[in-house]
Structure formats: structure tokens, C-alpha cells
């Protein structure tokens, strides 16, 4: 166990056993988060990003969501083996999560102040007055006047709601913050505000960040490391610098190519043709094979594994047969 890493995910597999078939949402995913660092997790809708984040918090939807294998180590302790009561001690205090849609993330019938206090009260022994005082301070930390603590979520705009959500998540100064597309539902200008605020609070409190997004621009500005997910697996991972400079996996290349360049004169956008494979019926070979412009015969029958290529911190890995020979196959 590396004490440098606050969370280590090893071979995590999560399936959704539905009536129409089993959705293989996450397959043997391994990821480690270092202390006080920021990680981006990029992928299309359905790639498994939310499944991974919720899996860490053990918020996988029941009864159809099943963790099939793997370990999630927080400072050496496996979260998957903890009892509900133990888990409750970690959630909110050591690991926090914020969700995608601020409009539905807050309980509409409880005041925002009380929702912050709830988080505090679950982990600390404070009096009623102390709780409200702290809640007010936390609101101020995200730029909302403390007097508004007695108001209800519907009385805030989308951006402010998200700030409340962030306030709740960071109230107890956790080591890790999982942010699932926190700005997708917001205006671009508000996006910038919210991301800035997360960045500031992060540095102040020393929190690690796992930022899930489909926007490479956001990753560039906010993350040190990034992992690209496709069809339930990580297909490329490394420092942001490495990946932005050397896009190894054809999917990563495709993602970057589909972003229009502001200085180029383009008549059409170049998306990646096709769709992600049906997660109840994943192909035998490489999941990206059908859409890959560089596919070879091997790709259809054999499943590639993650290979270490090198890079800045010797952390650049890719899952593609094109690079097998580099590392001895």
C-alpha cells in the first residue's frame, strides 16, 4: 500500500443486473488517487464514470447494482468490506461526493442551513447554536451570505444551489472530493465560477479531487492527472501534460479531434463515428474496435490490457494493441 495514495481502487467490477440483461458498467477498473491532487475522469455518457464514483461511496443503486469484485482502499482499509455503520463514519468526513444536477441534489423541504448542519451533526458533537454558527461560516466560505441559511433550495439559482452542495461536501474538510460533472447543468459563466471555487477550496483545505467530466477543457484547467474511460474500462491514464501532448489511444485522439479549434477554418465537425457498444453485450475483443480507424485483426478477438508507456511520472498507461510491442508485447 502506498501511503502517498489516499484512495486505491483495485480491479473494481460493478454490474447492474436488470431484467433485460446484465449491464456491465464497470470492468476491472484500477485507479489510485494521491493526496492533495486533482484527477480528471473523462468519457462519454455510459462509459462508467458515475458508476465508479458512486461505487467508491458505496452508493451503487440497489437492488440491481452488484459489486462483483475488487477492492476500494481508503488509507489501507477496504471500503467494500465495511459495515453500514462504519461506512457512515467515512462518508462526509473523509470522502465526499457532489452530484450532477443541483436542481435535484438538495432536499426541497429542508432549509439549506439545516442540510449543512445535518452533515456536521452526523460526525461532530456540537450544540444547536454551534451547529448554526458553523453552517453560516461554511455558507460564507462558498460565497453565500450566512443569513440565507434558513432559506430553501428553490429560493436559490442553479449556480448557488451547486455552491450549497459544495459547501455541504466540504463542511468537514474531507480528504477526497468526488465531483460528478458538477458544472454540466450550469451556464458556462457559472461553470467557471464554480470550478474556480472548487479549486480555491481544494488548495485551502488540501483535498484530493476526482473530477468527472466529458469536457477536456475543464480537465486542462483543473486537473493534474486524467483517466479516459470507455465502455466500463480505463483506456488511457497519465498526467494531463502527457496525455494532452501524446494522445496514444485512438479514442483519446478522436475525443481531441472532435473539439473544434477556434483558430481553424472548419466546415464540419469531426465526431467519432458510431456508438459505444451495448453494455449488456460487450464485444469479445477491444470495445473500441468497431469505431477505431487504426484497428487490426487482433483487436476483434483479443482484449487489450493496460500497458505502461512511461511519461512524466512514469504513469502514462494505455490499453491498446498498437503499443504492445513498445513494452515487449
Amino acid at each position, binding site marked *: 500500500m502506498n501511503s502517498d495514495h489516499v484512495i486505491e481502487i483495485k480491479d473494481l467490477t460493478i454490474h447492474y443486473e436488470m431484467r433485460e440483461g446484465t449491464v456491465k458498467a464497470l470492468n476491472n477498473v484500477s485507479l489510485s488517487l494521491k493526496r492533495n491532487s486533482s484527477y480528471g475522469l473523462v468519457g462519454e455518457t455510459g462509459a462508467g464514470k458515475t458508476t465508479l464514483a*458512486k461505487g467508491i461511496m458505496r*452508493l451503487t443503486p440497489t437492488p440491481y447494482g452488484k459489486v462483483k469484485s475488487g477492492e476500494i482502499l481508503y488509507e489501507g482499509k477496504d471500503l467494500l468490506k465495511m459495515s453500514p455503520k462504519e461506512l*457512515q463514519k467515512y462518508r*462526509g468526513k473523509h470522502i465526499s461526493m*457532489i452530484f450532477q444536477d443541483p436542481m435535484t441534489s438538495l*432536499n*426541497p*423541504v429542508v*432549509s439549506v442551513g439545516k442540510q449543512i448542519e*445535518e452533515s456536521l451533526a452526523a460526525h461532530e458533537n456540537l450544540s444547536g447554536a454551534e451547529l448554526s454558527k458553523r453552517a453560516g461560516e461554511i455558507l460564507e466560505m462558498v460565497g453565500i451570505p450566512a443569513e440565507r441559511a434558513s432559506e430553501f433550495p428553490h429560493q436559490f439559482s442553479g449556480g448557488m444551489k451547486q455552491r450549497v452542495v459544495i459547501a455541504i461536501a466540504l463542511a468537514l474538510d474531507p480528504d477526497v472530493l468526488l465531483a460528478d460533472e458538477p458544472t454540466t447543468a450550469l451556464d458556462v459563466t457559472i461553470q467557471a465560477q464554480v470550478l474556480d471555487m472548487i479549486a480555491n477550496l481544494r488548495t485551502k483545505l488540501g483535498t484530493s479531487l476526482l473530477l468527472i467530466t466529458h469536457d477536456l477543457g475543464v480537465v486542462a484547467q483543473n486537473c493534474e492527472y486524467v483517466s479516459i474511460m470507455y465502455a466500463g474500462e480505463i483506456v488511457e491514464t497519465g498526467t494531463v501534460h502527457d496525455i494532452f501532448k501524446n494522445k496514444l489511444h485512438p479514442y483519446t485522439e478522436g475525443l481531441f479531434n472532435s473539439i473544434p479549434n477556434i483558430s481553424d477554418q472548419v466546415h464540419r465537425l469531426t465526431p467519432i463515428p458510431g456508438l459505444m457498444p451495448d453494455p449488456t453485450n460487450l464485444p469479445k475483443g477491444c470495445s473500441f474496435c468497431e469505431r477505431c480507424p487504426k484497428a487490426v485483426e487482433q483487436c476483434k478477438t483479443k482484449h487489450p490490457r493496460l500497458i505502461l508507456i512511461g511519461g512524466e511520472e512514469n504513469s502514462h498507461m494505455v490499453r491498446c494493441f498498437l503499443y504492445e510491442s513498445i513494452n515487449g508485447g
Partner: protein
Amino acid sequence: MKNIIFKRLIMIIPVLLAVTFLVFGIMEMTPGDPAIAILGADATPESISLVHQQLGLDQPFLVRYGKFVLNLLHGDLGTSYKNNLDVMGQLMQRLPNTLLLAGLALIFATAVGVPVGIISARKQYSLLDNICMVGTLLGAAAPNFWLGLMLVLFFSLRLGWVPATGMVSGAGFAKSLIMPVITLGFQSAALIARMTRSAMLDVLRADYVDTARSKGISESQVTFRHQFRNALIPIVTTMGLQLGVMIGGAVTVETVFAWPGIGRYILESINLKDTPCVLGAVVMLAIILAIINLIVDIIYAYIDPRIKSQYETITGKRR
């Protein structure tokens, strides 16, 4: 809050006034001369016009309407043609019976419907859920008067457990209540069960429940402070609606069980062509329903702060 109540009260009054006008107008169209109804078919023209004068029937429509409203404000709902008794007094005897029936039926419907809905939601897609869903479908489709007849057929006539009809005073009172209450409440129980189930399903998977769990609070706090509080809103709305429906729909149940309530009173008065009784009873029902709706709205504003905000910003506009 008091402001809201006051505003809503003010809004009710013109509506109720219009209702009195509407009902008064409808009853005006009733064929037949009340004087003949009182005196008999072979009455002399003189006695007929005398009765017309006594009853004020020789006055124009608007004048009579005006008098009616004035009397209404004094608590006088008119006098029966048939037995010359005060309508208000008669209603006061019958009204509590209907309100008791409807109130108990609502309690029954909630006590049965909510747990069924919760269990159904918790065990979605299970056999139990399917059985409950079929049950609610049947319950919602069965006419209450037929259900009453079936209950009477089975429990009174075949098994003899409870009296078949009528309101028994004294010791047998409770027993005589059982079947009418079940009959009246059954359909509402089915609807409340369905609403509870769908409300629970909504809250069980809600995003804010994930947020709540991610804070590390206990499961029971999640259930009560987050899930239950939110599920309550549509459930209470349905309960309020059903109470109004039951008060209106009590007439068929009262007929089956010969229950001396306001529904049967209206029916009897209609059959006797006793117009003032019908008029008074209908107006009274409208007033009661308006009060019940107001109370439900207030409760609603209490449990849902979004509604409270809406009310606070209304300046006479519709919601």
C-alpha cells in the same frame, strides 16, 4: 402565514356567492308549483296565490335570490315545503352523520392505503407488489354501492356478523359503522395506495437521497427526514382530494346502508320536490367543501415550502 389564510378566505367568498347563484338558478328550473305540492292538486287559485305570497314566490328572481343570500348570512337556509321545518336545523342533525362517515372512511383509507403503498414500493416487481397493484386496480374500479351490497350480502345476510342497514344508537353504534365506513373508504384506499407507491418510488431513487447518504447520516434519518417528508406531499394532497370526493359520493353508500346523512337528505328532498331543502343542503355542502379545501391548502403550505413561497407571492393571481 396568517396573511395567506386571510387572502385565501377572501378569494373563497366571491366563489361561494357565485355558487349560491348557480344552485339557486338551477333549482329555479325545477318544474312544478310548490304551492300545489303543499296544498294538493285540487287547490283553489286563491289559496295558491296566498301560498305564493307567504313563501315570497310572487317576487322576481333576483329579489328572491337576494333574500336567500341575506338569510344565508344569518344562518337561515330556508324552510321545508313539506314539513315546515327549518332546513338548517334538519341539516345540523344529518350533517354530523355524513362527516363522521367520511372522516372515518378517510382514516380507514389512509390506514390501509399508505402501508400497502409503502410495502409495494419497497418490494417493487415482487409477487406482493403485483398482488397489491391488482388489488388497487380492482378497488378503484368497483362501484362503492355495489361493494356495499356485496358486503351486506356476505357479512350480514350470510354470516350475520353485523347489522345490514341503518344507524344504530347506543351499544350497536360502532358495529353499524363498520361496513359503511369500509364501503365508502375502499376506493380511496386503492387510490391512496397507488399514490403512496408512486411517491415512495420517486423518493427512494431521488438524487437528494444520494446526497443525504453521502453525508454519512444514519439510514433512519435518510428515511424520515428525506424520503418520508417528501413522499408525504403527494400523499396528503390525495388524502385531501379524497375527503372531498367521499363527502360528495357518500350519497350512494348512505342509500345502501340507510345511513341518515346529508346525501340521503338531498335525495329524499329531491324525490319530495322539496326545493328549499335541496338548495340549502347543496349550498351547505359547498361551504363545507370550501373550508376543507382551505384547510388542506394550509396543511400543504406547511409541509411544502415551495408552495408556501408561491402563496406568499400571489396577489390575487391563480396558482
